[in-house]
């Protein structure tokens, strides 16, 4: 049975699309047939992050409206054989996503894929509700910052009440906390909420901590998900997230600030 995972946050700009791209790529790199869907209708960006923007012909809404077949809209990833992208429409608005339409497309995808990753738009309106409605599991992307934590809490309430699982009184959506843009040096200085602070407030299992890194911007410039840049800490953090999702028990990494260079090194360079 295919598993549907929503990447959600409430707050905008916290790293949902970055996470969707890298999580889906990570699943595919581990050999799983994966599709990642952009639910951000009107503001599509996943195609840019995945580097397939010039190959978009049809989109999710075209498929829902039966203007195109699913396999005409799916774009095969450049780097992984078992990864596909279903882009959002750039010209329509979020109301074009109907519950029945989305349900039909997901059901068709479920026949072919093991994992369906849904990149949610920000907010708690129809687009975000649609992205989470059919989910089995959720990655709740949170930045170490008050408004992001509060919005994540809000989204947790919605996952528990407005999803199909909730409506049908089924087992609830399995929630995972993913902290991104974490800056250990600022946490050490007491300027930024720590992992413990956030876990203590949101009370859901932590699946990973992704450090703040310039590599994310550089990767987005190129249109190559940063998980491919295997020597960077973000790539390794995202690989860990995927492994933990698959059941591995791995210690958290990148929680400590790199040691400050010694006095001599600072004086004389190094």
């Amino acid at each position, binding site marked *: 049975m295919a598993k549907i995972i929503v990447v959600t946050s409430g707050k905008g700009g916290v790293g949902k699309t970055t996470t969707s791209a890298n999580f889906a790529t990570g699943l595919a790199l581990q050999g799983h047939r994966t599709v990642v869907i952009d639910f951000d209708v009107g503001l599509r960006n996943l195609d840019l992050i995945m580097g397939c923007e010039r190959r978009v012909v049809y989109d999710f809404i075209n498929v829902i409206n039966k203007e195109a077949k699913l396999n005409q809209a799916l774009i095969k990833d450049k780097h992984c054989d078992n990864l596909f992208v279903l882009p959002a429409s750039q010209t329509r608005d979020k109301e074009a996503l109907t519950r029945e339409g989305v349900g039909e497309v997901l059901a068709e995808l479920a026949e072919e894929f093991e994992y369906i990753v849904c990149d949610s738009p920000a907010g708690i309106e129809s687009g975000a509700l649609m992205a989470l409605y059919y989910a089995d599991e959720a990655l709740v992307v949170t930045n170490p910052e008050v408004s992001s934590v509060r919005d994540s809490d809000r989204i947790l309430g919605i996952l528990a009440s407005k999803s199909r699982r909730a409506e049908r009184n089924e087992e609830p959506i399995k929630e995972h906390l993913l902290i991104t843009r974490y800056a250990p040096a600022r946490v050490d200085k*007491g300027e930024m909420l720590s992992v413990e602070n956030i876990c203590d407030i949101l009370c859901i299992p932590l699946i990973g901590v992704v450090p703040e890194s310039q590599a994310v911007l550089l990767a987005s410039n190129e249109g190559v998900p940063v998980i491919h840049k295997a020597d960077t800490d973000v790539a390794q953090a995202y690989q860990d997230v995927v492994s933990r999702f698959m059941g591995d028990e791995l210690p958290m990494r990148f929680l400590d600030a790199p040691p400050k260079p010694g006095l001599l090194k600072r004086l004389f360079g190094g």
Partner: protein
Amino acid sequence: MSLIDRWLGRSMEKQSAAVAHERLQIILTHERNGRTGTPDYLPALQKELLAVISKYVAVSAENIKVQLERQDQLEVLEVNIVLPDSRG
């Protein structure tokens, strides 16, 4: 910056994340309570109470207040009925 200043500076900043943590704890406890919301049977309950009580005493809807209060694990359903002034 002297050692003392630096130490003080650090301890001042320490408070910054701590303040954020504390504020979040307070506001989210509050918001989570609101989220469970007032159960939607309250208006209907109020209406039925009004119907029953009106059989015996002349009361109007605004004289019957029904509300639910939460205190930690405890829920209190409070029904407040103001009877009309019998002398009036």
